[in-house]
């Protein structure tokens, strides 16, 4: 029940986007139509425990109702821990983890992604690591390690390989990294 002064948003289901579930299937959430909304995934989800409005079960529900705009305007999917509790417990083998990823893939194509995600993606392209601290050299040296680990950060040829792969993926169409030399490959 609403207290005085509180409001709630009315969602017009007839305005849902037809074909949204099909789009999710193409993006990797192949078994979304198997979901019976039993809620086992929600019972294990860290997003639900922490109080995010759209955890696995509700994301699937919103997709099935075509509520793309609602999901694009909410940050929850980016807080998914990818912990795979849901995928472990789902009795219908829906693989909610893949549906969360598919929803993110839809969101990035609408440029609906948080700045922290852009930072990680850019870092993956620039140095080959999603998490990178340029000031890590000093503490590494103090521990007796080489300033740079034996990864793409210490090996320009290896980095060029990773960058070459990334430029041939749909990442190259998003304007975060340089455009692909071989055009758009899609997913």
């Amino acid at each position, binding site marked *: 029940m609403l207290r005085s002064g509180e409001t709630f948003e009315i969602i017009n289901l007839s305005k849902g986007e037809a074909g949204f579930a099909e789009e999710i299937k193409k993006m*990797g959430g192949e078994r979304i139509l198997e979901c019976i909304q039993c809620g086992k995934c929600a019972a294990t989800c*860290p*997003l639900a*425990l*922490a*109080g*995010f409005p759209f955890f696995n079960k509700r994301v699937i529900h919103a997709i099935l109702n075509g509520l793309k705009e609602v999901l694009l305007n909410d*940050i929850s999917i*980016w*807080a*998914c*821990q*990818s*912990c*795979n*509790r849901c*995928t*472990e417990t789902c009795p219908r083998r829906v693989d909610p*983890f893949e549906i969360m*990823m598919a929803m*993110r*893939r839809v969101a*990035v194509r609408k440029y609906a992604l*948080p700045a*922290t*995600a852009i930072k*990680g*993606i850019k870092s*993956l392209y620039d140095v*080959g*690591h*999603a*998490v*990178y*601290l340029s000031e*890590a050299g000093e*503490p*590494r040296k*103090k*521990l*007796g*390690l080489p300033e740079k*680990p*034996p*990864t*793409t950060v*210490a090996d320009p*040829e*290896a980095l060029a*390989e*990773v960058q*070459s*792969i*990334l430029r*041939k*993926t*749909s*990442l190259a169409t998003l304007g975060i990294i340089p455009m692909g030399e071989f055009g758009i*490959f899609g*997913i």
Partner: protein
Amino acid sequence: MKVGFFIGCNIAFNRPDLEQAVRYTFPALGVELDDLEGQSCCPTWGTMPSIDPVGWYAVGARNLAIAEEKRVEMITACSTCYGSLAKTAHKLQTHRETRNRVNRLLKSIGKEYRGTSRIRHVVYYLYHEIGPEKIKASIKHGLERLSVAIQPGCLSLWPSEIQPEKEADVFHPKILRELCEVLGASAPPYSRILDCCGMGGMRSTDMEKSFILVERKLVTMKKELNPDLIVTGCSSCLIQLDTAQEFLQNKGKINFAIPVLHYVQLLAVCLGAEPQQVAGLARTPVLHLLNKIREG
């Protein structure tokens, strides 16, 4: 015995003391480490998996291909790297078309994924490959009278279907507990043993909500076990449980501090490593405890 060391971003740049712990522990137990030169990010969930699955698998497969060329398996102390690379390997082994597309991308850089290597989690590697008996026989300092709360790390447990190595019952994990007990510590279960620490996508998206989870976890450990130490199998859990405590203390949310270590750091000290070298970057003080362990 030789194995490839997949370091992982968080360990290389945030907790290189854990990298040093791996570099100490494995040779001390007779396992030579290969650096897998040119390795990159696994890559993790917020990047390629959220954009382009074939691109995700291709970056992962390039890492696996480096290990294949050297004819070694890979170990990681990061559960996210384990999860991402295990999912990649599983997809490429079960989905021929995806594997062909990935190999077309790899061919352009002169590489190929053959499926002859695999990613192994350090906790499972130590348990299955070295074994509790040999670990027990190798340690110089025991942990008698030490009480430990364990935090296995989500992706070392789930999804069990695709993992090369796993617990017998993934909702009642025992391996990390047993590995702590082998060192002489007690490692009893507690009610929130399976709860997520809140690191990862949640922490970078909404730190306050992420700290709801870590606070609940820490308070439960304190109330039920009052442990001397938290031991985890995952570098992300290590960073979250270690760095959140100072923040929660300053906010008046907790009035205690429990030192946090990755299992490999603890094992390194038991094998004779200098605490500063293998755990010197902990934010929640731990060196006093480790020095005491060394004194016996």
